[in-house]
């Protein structure tokens, strides 16, 4: 069972005038003690004078780049060490159970690197476009920022999200089962504009984005998609991309598997055939039960998960009014509806979606009810704007077997016991 880490409760810092002398400290102690005797009855959080209500806090500039409260120190990305040989080519997971709304904070966006984080100097950043073009081109960061910019919100989900769950419930926590996803506002240039500057030849059918990192990540993307909604982004949630998200520029491939969103983007080659590179042949292909493999499975099917309660976020308040919340998304459009079941999929009721609903973006849902303290088998089911209904895991396995690793969008079940503790399970 996952244990929630308690935040370390640091003693609030005393201010400069208190640090100055012992006498001041003693006087302050007496003052707090006096308050306690004056109001002995009631909630200590109310009747006790708190340091933060007495002593002035940090001034401006104590943290020139602001960080979350010390009480939120447990809200971090985490990895699963047994998944990979080394953290340089590995993945960590977004703490979905600690988040709300639809936007993932930059510092909590999951990481997946194949050759570690490239530290690219923006002054030395170059984006080359070559291949089947009229004129091979080079753009600097300054050039990129002179094109018309767009702001769009998209989810990025790794194709292997929930990949450990094909054979059965394995990991206790939605951070681990569903945390290879994030949803941010991108600011960038439509890829179409850049390709047009180079002049795409008529026999071109594909583009191949390439990363500047040590893995030299490459994928083949159909030209049609490149000209439709792909963009070269340099901001996320208003600030520069984080190094681990591809600073200074990355490709955005809306609705399609995260591996194609090449980070530290340095080159786009235009061609007439796919390149069949490592990450689209030996990896990111879906092995079926009959030993054959699907390739170019780009679109992410509609999916949802209840983030609270979940194994890392049990119900702690006992029976009575209870909020169930979670996220849903689809690589094919918007989420039209999310259903929630309390009994393992026997009966369903419509959840309430709150917050902006964008194409190929995360949606936030809630379901509020009075919990009677009995065992729950919680499930959520997303329905997207194409009418696609999120399938059960068994429905997926009936088509694909259990070896495919990628594209597991099956319905997740949490067993909540009478104490409010949640466990990752599967049901008949």
């Amino acid at each position: 069972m996952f244990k929630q880490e308690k935040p370390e409760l640091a003693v609030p810092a005393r201010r400069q005038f208190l640090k100055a002398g012992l006498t001041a400290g003693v006087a302050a102690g007496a003052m707090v003690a006096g308050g306690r005797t004056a109001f002995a009855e009631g909630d200590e959080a109310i009747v006790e004078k708190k340091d933060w209500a007495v002593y002035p806090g940090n001034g401006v500039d104590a943290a020139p780049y602001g960080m979350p409260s010390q009480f939120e120190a447990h809200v971090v990305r985490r990895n699963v060490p047994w998944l990979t040989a080394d953290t340089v080519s590995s993945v960590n997971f977004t703490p979905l159970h600690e988040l709300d709304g639809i936007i993932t904070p930059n510092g909590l966006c999951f990481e997946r690197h194949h050759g570690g984080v490239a530290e690219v100097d923006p002054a030395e950043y170059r984006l080359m476009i070559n291949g089947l073009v009229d004129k091979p081109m080079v753009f600097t960061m300054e050039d990129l920022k002179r094109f018309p910019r767009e702001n769009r919100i998209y989810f990025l989900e790794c194709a292997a999200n929930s990949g450990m769950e094909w054979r059965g419930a394995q990991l206790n926590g939605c951070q681990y089962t569903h945390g290879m996803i994030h949803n941010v506002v991108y600011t960038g240039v439509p890829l179409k504009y850049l390709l047009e500057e180079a002049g795409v030849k008529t026999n071109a059918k594909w583009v191949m984005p390439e990363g500047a990192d040590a893995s030299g990540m490459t994928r083949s993307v159909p030209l049609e998609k490149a000209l439709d909604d792909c963009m070269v982004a340099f901001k996320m949630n208003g600030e520069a991309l984080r190094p681990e998200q591809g600073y200074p520029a990355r490709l955005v491939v809306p609705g399609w598997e995260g591996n194609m969103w090449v980070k530290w983007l340095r080159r786009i080659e235009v061609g007439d055939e796919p390149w069949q590179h490592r990450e689209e042949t030996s990896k990111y292909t879906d092995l079926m039960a009959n030993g054959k493999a699907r390739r170019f499975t780009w679109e992410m099917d509609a999916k949802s998960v209840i983030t609270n309660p979940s194994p890392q976020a049990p119900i702690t308040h006992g029976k009575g009014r209870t909020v169930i919340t979670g996220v849903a998304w689809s690589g094919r459009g918007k989420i039209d509806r999310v259903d929630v079941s309390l009994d393992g999929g026997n009966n369903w009721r419509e959840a309430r979606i709150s917050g902006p609903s964008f194409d190929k973006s995360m949606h936030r849902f809630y379901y509020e009810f009075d919990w009677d303290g009995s065992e729950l088998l919680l499930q959520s089911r997303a329905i997207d704007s194409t009418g696609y209904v999120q399938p059960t895991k068994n429905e997926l396995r009936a088509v694909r077997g259990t070896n495919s690793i990628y594209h597991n969008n099956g319905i997740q079940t949490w067993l909540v016991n009478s104490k409010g503790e949640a466990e990752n399970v599967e049901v008949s």
Partner: protein
Amino acid sequence: MSRFPKAALLAAGIHMALISPVLAGQFNLGREATPEEVAAWDIDVRPDGQGLPEGRGTVAQGEEIFAEKCAACHGDFGEGVDRWPVLAGGQGSLKSDNPVKTIGSYWPYLSTVFDYINRAMPFTEAKSLEPDEVYAITAYLLYVNDVVTDEDFELSKENFVSVKMPNTDNFYMDDRETTELADRRKAPCMENCKPGVKVTKRAAIIDVTPDEGAEPKGSLE
């Protein structure tokens, strides 16, 4: 880099508009890449051999280089060390409960092997191998996967595309559109859909969640 004269640009724009659905650039940003610059970065190789550099290397040469630069992670014969990728073996395992996806058992194209080694290996010093070394290592990987059996086999730009990989024909285009989507686009059941639901699998029993669990089989990488 000098720009095209304005008139020429205009003419090119009109030309593009006539023959291509893609319009020519309208922002006049960036500069033309030189052939030397393109050559410095354009190292990708395709299944039809496009992008292969001049060069050659034998299985025996590859064995030596592999032992020095690759075996620490991949093992002397590509069997893999710890959780580093297994490169050889696994033939006949793809339908089993423990498929072993190696170059021999799974990878559809030899060009993928050459391209990946050339751009991303060795893991601690990518893009450091000479073309002859990449040909030799690729030849050795064919040998440990029984795709070639002669230690004197030499792989080169000239004979590269004649090598066929065993699993080439077992890949097919994403067919979810025809095999899955019709079943998914049905109005879902809302009431009494599954009476008598039972728990069938529990993560607590497998117990592999970080901090507490044992290591299960398999690896993401």
